[in-house]
C-alpha cells in the first residue's frame, strides 16, 4: 500500500532522471530533511516534544515514528493511534494497573488486546514487534497476529493472561521470522498442545525463547531438536518441568547462550538405574558467554557447585525461586564480582546479604523476596542486611526489599551511601510497623531517601507512617514519577502534600490509607499530567469521585466494586486515568464509569 509521501519522492526521483526536475518547494525540502533527521530520534519523550513544534513537524514526526508506546491501552483508541502513526514497526501496550497483580481487582476488568490486534492487522502490515504488559490476550488474538504480519520478529508478553499453549502453537508455526518469544510471568493455560514441536523444521532464527512461567510440561525431545536447529539462540529460559539432566543436554547443544533459565535444577526420576550423573560443571564451563542466570525453581542445593565456573562472568543472577540458605549462597556469591543484578529469597538471611555486600561491588539492582509472604512470618532479613548492602554496594540504583523489621537508621544510611538510587521500594510486611528499635514511625527514613537520593523516580513506602513522611515526599521528591502507598498516613494532608508537591508524579497507587474527598480535590491541577491514580479502601465517597469526573472531562473515572458487594453505590477502588476517548464500552458490570 504505497503512501502519499513515498509517491512524492518517487516522482521527484523520476523527475531527476528524465530531466524534468522541478525544484521542490522549501517547505518540502525542510520536511524531507526533517524526516531524515527524525529517523534517528528514538526517545519517545523527545519525539513528543518535536511533535509540538508546529504542524509540519507534527506530521513529519508522525510519519517517522516506528516505535509506538501506549502506557495505558484505554488512554487512546486503536483507530486514533493508527491514524496518526502510519509506519509503525513496534508496539508497546500496557493494560491493567499494577495492583491488579495482587488480586485487588476482580478478574475480567478489561485491557483486551483484541481491538488492537484487529486494527493493526490491516493497518500495520510490516509490524515486527509487540510488547504487552498486563493485557488480556486470547488464542485467537495470537492466531490473528501470526497470520497478519509476515515480517513479525518479536513477541514479548509480561504479566498477561487469557491465552494458552494453543495460541503459542500458532505463533511458533506461522511466524517464520520469529526471533524472540518471551513469556514472562504470564498465566498460560495448558491446552495440552505440544507447541514446542510447532516451530519450523528446517531451522529457526530464534534468538530468545523464554517460557519459565509455563506451568505445564513440554515435549523435551522436541525442545532439544529445536535448540539444535536454532543457531542464533542466545537466551533460553526453561520452565520447572525441565530437569537438570535435561538442562545438561540442552547446554551442551547451546554453549553460545548468554542468558539461561535453568528450569527446576533438580533431578526428576528420569535417571536410569546405574547411570552416572552428567558432568554439569563442564557443561557450565563450556558456556563462556553466559552472563545471566536464573531458574532454580526446585533446586537441590547439592547441584549448586555446577554453576561455579560461570559466576565470575555473571552480571545478572536470579535466585528468587531458589530455597537456599546462607552458607549455600555464600559458596556461590563469593565468585560473583561482576554481578549487577541480583534477585534472591530472604532464606539467605542477613548474613547472606552481608556476603553479597562484601563481594558485589558493581551491584546496581537488588531484590529480596520473602519465602514466606505473610504478615506474621519469621522475617529472616532485617535492617542489618539493608545496612550491609548500603555500605558494600555503593553503586546501587534499584532496590526492592521485603522484611519484617526495619529501622530508620538503616534506611537513612542507605540514603547517604547509595546516592545513585533511582528506585527505592521497601516493604515492611507487618502493617503499621514502626522502627523496631526506637518505636518511632518510619517517617525519617523515607524522608532521608527523598532528600538525599536526588535521582529518585520510583518510591514504595511501608511501615508506620504519619503525614510527616508525605510532607517530606512532597517537599523533596521532585523527580518522583511512581509512588506506592499502603496502610500509611493520618489524614487528607498526607495525600495533599504529594499531589501538590510532586510535579513529575505520573503513577500513584494507594491502598488502605485515610485519604478522602478533600485530598482527592487537591490534585485537580495535576491529574491530566498523570497516567493514572489508584485508590482502594481509602475514605472516598461516590460524590467525591463524581465531582472529579464532572470537573475533568478528559479523565475516565472508574469506581470498581467487589463482585460480591451488595450495595450498588459502595465501591472499593477508584481508578482514574486521562484519555482522549470516550469511556470504554467493554467494562464489566462491577465497574461504574462516572
Amino acid at each position, binding site marked *: 500500500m504505497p503512501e502519499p509521501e513515498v509517491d512524492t519522492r518517487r516522482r521527484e526521483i523520476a523527475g531527476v532522471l528524465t530531466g524534468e526536475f522541478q525544484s521542490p518547494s522549501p517547505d518540502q525540502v525542510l520536511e524531507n530533511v526533517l524526516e531524515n533527521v527524525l529517523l534517528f530520534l528514538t526517545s519517545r519523550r523527545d519525539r513528543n516534544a518535536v511533535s509540538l513544534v508546529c504542524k509540519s513537524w507534527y506530521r513529519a514526526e508522525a510519519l517517522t515514528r516506528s516505535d509506538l508506546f501506549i502506557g495505558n491501552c484505554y488512554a487512546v483508541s486503536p483507530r486514533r493511534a493508527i491514524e496518526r502513526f502510519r509506519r509503525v514497526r513496534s508496539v508497546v501496550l500496557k493494560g491493567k494497573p499494577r*495492583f491488579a*497483580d*495482587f*488480586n*485487588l481487582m476482580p478478574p475480567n476488568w478489561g485491557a483486551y488486546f483484541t481491538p488492537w490486534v484487529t486494527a493493526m492487522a490491516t493497518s500495520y502490515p510490516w509490524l515486527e514487534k509487540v510488547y504487552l504488559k498486563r493485557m488480556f490476550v486470547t488464542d485467537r488474538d495470537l492466531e490473528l497476529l501470526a497470520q497478519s504480519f509476515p515480517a513479525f520478529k518479536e513477541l514479548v508478553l509480561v504479566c498477561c493472561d487469557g491465552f494458552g499453549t494453543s495460541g503459542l502453537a500458532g505463533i511458533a508455526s506461522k511466524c517464520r521470522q520469529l526471533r524472540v518469544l518471551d513469556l514472562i*510471568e504470564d*498465566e498460560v493455560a495448558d491446552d495440552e498442545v505440544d507447541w514446542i514441536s510447532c516451530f519450523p523444521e528446517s531451522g529457526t532464527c530464534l534468538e530468545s525463547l523464554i517460557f519459565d*512461567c509455563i506451568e505445564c510440561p513440554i515435549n523435551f525431545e522436541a525442545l532439544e531438536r529445536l535448540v539444535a536447529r536454532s543457531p542464533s539462540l542466545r537466551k533460553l529460559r526453561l520452565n520447572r518441568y525441565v530437569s537438570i539432566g535435561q538442562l545438561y543436554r540442552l547446554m551442551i547443544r547451546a554453549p553460545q547462550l548468554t542468558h539461561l533459565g535453568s528450569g527446576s535444577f533438580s533431578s526428576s*526420576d528420569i535417571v*536410569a*538405574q546405574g547411570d552416572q550423573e552428567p558432568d554439569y560443571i563442564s557443561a557450565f564451563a563450556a558456556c563462556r558467554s553466559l552472563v545471566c542466570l536464573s531458574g532454580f*525453581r*526446585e533446586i537441590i542445593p*547439592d547441584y549448586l557447585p555446577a554453576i561455579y565456573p560461570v559466576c565470575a562472568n555473571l552480571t545478572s543472577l536470579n535466585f*528468587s*525461586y531458589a*530455597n537456599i540458605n546462607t552458607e549455600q549462597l555464600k559458596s556461590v556469591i563469593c565468585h560473583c564480582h561482576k554481578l549487577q543484578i541480583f534477585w534472591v529469597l530472604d532464606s539467605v538471611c542477613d548474613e547472606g546479604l552481608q556476603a553479597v555486600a562484601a563481594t558485589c561491588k558493581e551491584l546496581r539492582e537488588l531484590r529480596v*523476596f*520473602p*519465602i*514466606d*509472604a*505473610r*504478615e*506474621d512470618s519469621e522475617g529472616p532479613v532485617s535492617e542489618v542486611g539493608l545496612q550491609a548492602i548500603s555500605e558494600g554496594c555503593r553503586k546501587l540504583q534499584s532496590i526492592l526489599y*521485603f522484611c519484617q*523489621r526495619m529501622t530508620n537508621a538503616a534506611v537513612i544510611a542507605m540514603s547517604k551511601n547509595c546516592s545513585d538510587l533511582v528506585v527505592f521500594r521497601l*516493604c515492611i*510486611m*507487618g*502493617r*503499621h*510497623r*514502626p522502627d*523496631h*528499635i526506637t*518505636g518511632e514511625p518510619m517517617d525519617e527514613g523515607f524522608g532521608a531517601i527523598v532528600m538525599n537520593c536526588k535521582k529518585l523516580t520510583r518510591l514504595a513506602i511501608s511501615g*508506620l507512617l504519619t503525614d510527616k513522611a508525605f510532607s517530606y515526599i512532597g517537599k523533596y521528591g521532585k523527580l518522583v514519577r511512581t509512588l*506506592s502507598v*499502603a*496502610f500509611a498516613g493520618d489524614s487528607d494532608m498526607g495525600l495533599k502534600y504529594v499531589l501538590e508537591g510532586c510535579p513529575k508524579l505520573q503513577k500513584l497507587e494507594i*491502598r*488502605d490509607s485515610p485519604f478522602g474527598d478533600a485530598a482527592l480535590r487537591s490534585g485537580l491541577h495535576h491529574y491530566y499530567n498523570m497516567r493514572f491514580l489508584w485508590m482502594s479502601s481509602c475514605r472516598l465517597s461516590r460524590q467525591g469521585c463524581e465531582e472529579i469526573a464532572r470537573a475533568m472531562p478528559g479523565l475516565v473515572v472508574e469506581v470498581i466494586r467487589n463482585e460480591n458487594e451488595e450495595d450498588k453505590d459502595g465501591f472499593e477502588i477508584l481508578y482514574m486515568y486521562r484519555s482522549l476517548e470516550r469511556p470504554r464500552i467493554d467494562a464489566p458490570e462491577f465497574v461504574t464509569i462516572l
Partner: protein
Amino acid sequence: MEKPVVYDNGLNLEATELRLGLPGTNEPEKQTSTSARSKKRASPEMAEETRSKSSSCISDADDDAPPAKAQVVGWPPVRSYRKNSFQQRKGEAEGAGMYVKVGMDGAPYLRKIDLKVYKSYPELLNALENMFKFRIGEYSEREGYNGSDYTPTYEDKDGDWMLVGDVPWEMFISSCKRLRIMKGSE
C-alpha cells in the same frame, strides 16, 4: 514418647494407629508448621499461635492493628505465582498421587507405583511381591528381612538408602523418593 516399633506378624500396628495429625508430623516441628500454614488462609488456631509468639517491641504496634490476624487481600504485595511457588509442590504431592519408581536387581525395567494407594507396609509389600513375582521374608527390627534373598529398600529425601519398614508409615511415604528390591545376602 517414642515407642519402639513392634512388628506382629509383619504388621506395624503403630503405623496404622489412628491419630490426629498431618502426614509427616514426626518430622521436626518447624517443617510441620510451615506446611500446615502454607495450605490454609488464616484460621483462629494460627492466630493464637502467632499472637503468643510475638515479642515485646513488635507487639506494641500489633496492639493497634486489627485484632484478628487474618491475611489481608493482596498483602504483602507478592504475586500469587511467587507465593505459590513454595507451597505448590507440597500440594501436588499431597493431592495428585505419589508415584515412585521401583526397581529390582536383575530386572531390566523399572516400574512405577502410587504410594498413596497403600495404607500400610503390609499392603505395599504385598503389591511389590505380586508385581515382581517374589516373596519377602519376615521383618524384624533387629535383623531386617529374614527368610528370603530379597530386601526392599528405598531412597529417602536425603539421598540415603534405607530399609523399608524402619520408620512409621507416614514418615515413609513423605520421604520415599524411589524403591529398590535388592537381591542377594547383605
